[in-house]
């Protein structure tokens, strides 16, 4: 039944509804029909609260289910019909109000109202509580840990070679990584996933100091005051934007009255279309606000062993597989249209199933260790980095000691991710623009001390040549 679309209730029907609302016994018939719906959902405001007009009750940030996008109108408001007036989010229930219950008149029919909360407050709480995943998402990193990159190996021992992978790591690889010089630099603070503690005065102070609180408030303010989100009703399959109204509504016009204030529907749009539009807008605002913050070290699984770690390199065991990894700090890539795109921090790794170089240093070995989006990646966490190289490249590396080959391969992976998109290569033909990463100005990049890897490096060249190292 869609109130908005049917003919408006006549005077007799409206009188009957008024009588039923005031005479409790008249609800009996309705009770039987909508038996289940008469009990208030757990946690919703009681009739006493509603009568006292308590606002802000229950305005807690919604807890998203796994896989939910954090900023979806559906997640904030909840399912079903909803009314938003002056930032107050109200859920409309399909039942007549009991005496003292808060209600709204929608097309002359009274419907119980449950206050979800203040939209600004809801958005602020989402921004505060989920700032880490929002920052990671805004910087194009996924907060989800990498899952099952490789099937667990039964044994880490290399068959027929006499030296196990673990021996190789401790006796050869780690000493080699230490000579790179990065071991002298301090480890990034707070790089682990040890603490996920929320709440508390210390956390609040930290959030305030770091600017997260202001960012969350800014995001909430911008979204809550957006056109179309200040007053609207979602009724069935339709969205109506509302304007304050006084007087007699036109026949068929959506008319809503709540606590003495009247609204009329002005614009109508399919609900699904409006929701997608608002979701996109919220995502845009959130990305603009939270991309200013630096994400923490990618939250990939740290519960497995870390055999070695310095400022840049690490050797880890994940799902039974040993990986030699390299951390790449944020960087900027120039697009063919000369716009700059900011890519977040990424960790690339090479699995070490064996101490035989031909089994390790090979094509498609280098991969990202977590969810990441980039022109040269196809897939989610664990996606291989597309590094087109002739066979001679890998053959040359395989002739080196394995620890040397690994370091060189990881460096090549780093240079590919950062600087592998340039004029004169095949890359722009496969990937017209690095638009998966947010835009940044040159001034902002300099202020953030980010390296800019240029697309245009030689003037007047339009030849397509495949470069290899």
């Amino acid at each position, binding site marked *: 039944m869609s109130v908005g679309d049917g003919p408006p209730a006549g005077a007799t029907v409206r009188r009957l509804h008024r009588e039923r609302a005031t005479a409790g016994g008249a609800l009996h018939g309705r009770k039987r029909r909508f038996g289940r719906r008469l009990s208030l959902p757990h946690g919703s405001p009681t009739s006493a609260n509603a009568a006292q007009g308590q606002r802000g009750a229950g305005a807690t940030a919604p807890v998203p289910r796994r896989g939910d996008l954090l900023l979806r109108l559906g997640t904030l408001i909840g399912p079903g019909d909803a009314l938003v007036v002056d930032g107050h989010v109200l859920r409309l229930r399909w039942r007549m109000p009991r005496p003292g219950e808060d209600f709204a008149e929608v097309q002359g029919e009274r419907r119980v109202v449950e206050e979800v909360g203040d939209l600004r407050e809801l958005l602020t709480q989402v921004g505060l509580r989920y700032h880490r995943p929002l920052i990671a998402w805004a910087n194009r990193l996924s907060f989800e840990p990498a899952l099952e990159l490789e099937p667990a190996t039964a044994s880490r021992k290399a068959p027929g070679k006499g030296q196990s992978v673990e021996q190789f790591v401790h006796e050869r690889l780690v000493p080699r990584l230490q000579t790179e010089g990065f071991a002298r630099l301090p480890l990034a603070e707070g790089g682990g996933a040890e603490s996920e503690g929320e709440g508390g005065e210390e956390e609040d102070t930290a959030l305030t100091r770091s600017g997260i609180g202001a960012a969350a408030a800014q995001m909430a303010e911008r979204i809550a005051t957006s056109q179309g989100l200040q007053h609207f009703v979602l009724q069935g399959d339709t969205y109506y934007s509302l304007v304050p109204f006084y007087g007699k509504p036109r026949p068929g016009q959506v008319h809503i009255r709540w606590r003495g204030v009247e609204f009329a529907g002005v614009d109508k749009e399919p609900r699904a279309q409006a929701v997608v539009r608002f979701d996109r807008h919220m995502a845009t605002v959130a990305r603009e606000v939270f991309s200013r913050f630096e994400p923490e070290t990618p939250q990939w699984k740290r519960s497995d062993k870390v055999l070695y770690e310095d400022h840049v390199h690490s050797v880890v065991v994940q799902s039974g597989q040993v990986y030699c990894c390299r951390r790449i700090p944020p960087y900027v890539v120039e697009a063919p249209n000369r716009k700059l795109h900011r890519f977040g921090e990424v960790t690339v790794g090479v699995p070490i199933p064996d101490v035989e170089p031909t089994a390790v240093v090979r094509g498609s070995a280098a991969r990202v260790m977590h969810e990441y989006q980039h022109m040269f990646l196809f897939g989610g966490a664990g996606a291989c980095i597309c590094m087109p190289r002739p066979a001679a490249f890998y053959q040359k590396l395989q002739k080196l000691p394995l620890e040397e080959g690994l370091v060189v391969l990881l460096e090549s992976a780093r240079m590919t*991710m950062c600087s592998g998109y340039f004029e004169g290569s095949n890359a722009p033909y496969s990937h017209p623009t690095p638009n998966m990463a947010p835009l940044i100005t040159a001034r902002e990049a300099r202020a953030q001390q980010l390296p800019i*890897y240029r697309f245009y490096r030689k003037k007047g060249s339009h030849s397509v040549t495949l470069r290899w190292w």
Partner: protein
Amino acid sequence: MAQTSLRLGLQQAAERPLIKEDLRATVGQHIEALIEGTANANVAGQLRAALKDPQSVIEIRSGETVQTATPDMPLRELLSPGTGEVEITVSKPHVGG
């Protein structure tokens, strides 16, 4: 006095203290000055060839900060007298697909 080092990819090529006069030079000139100090003729040749290739990438690392540069860029735009250890890396193109 801060040290400045030159690398071709991962391979160390040269190293010497950074002097005030270096700040008047361009990146390319400074790299050339460093190349002259290398004993490895093979690496020196590869570095000169990479410098001539505009698709090569020059990175200047100072502490945790990395910047890209071109040979004609004045070095003073990238460094200052108070800059610590400086590492210049010249890399041949690494194309992605």
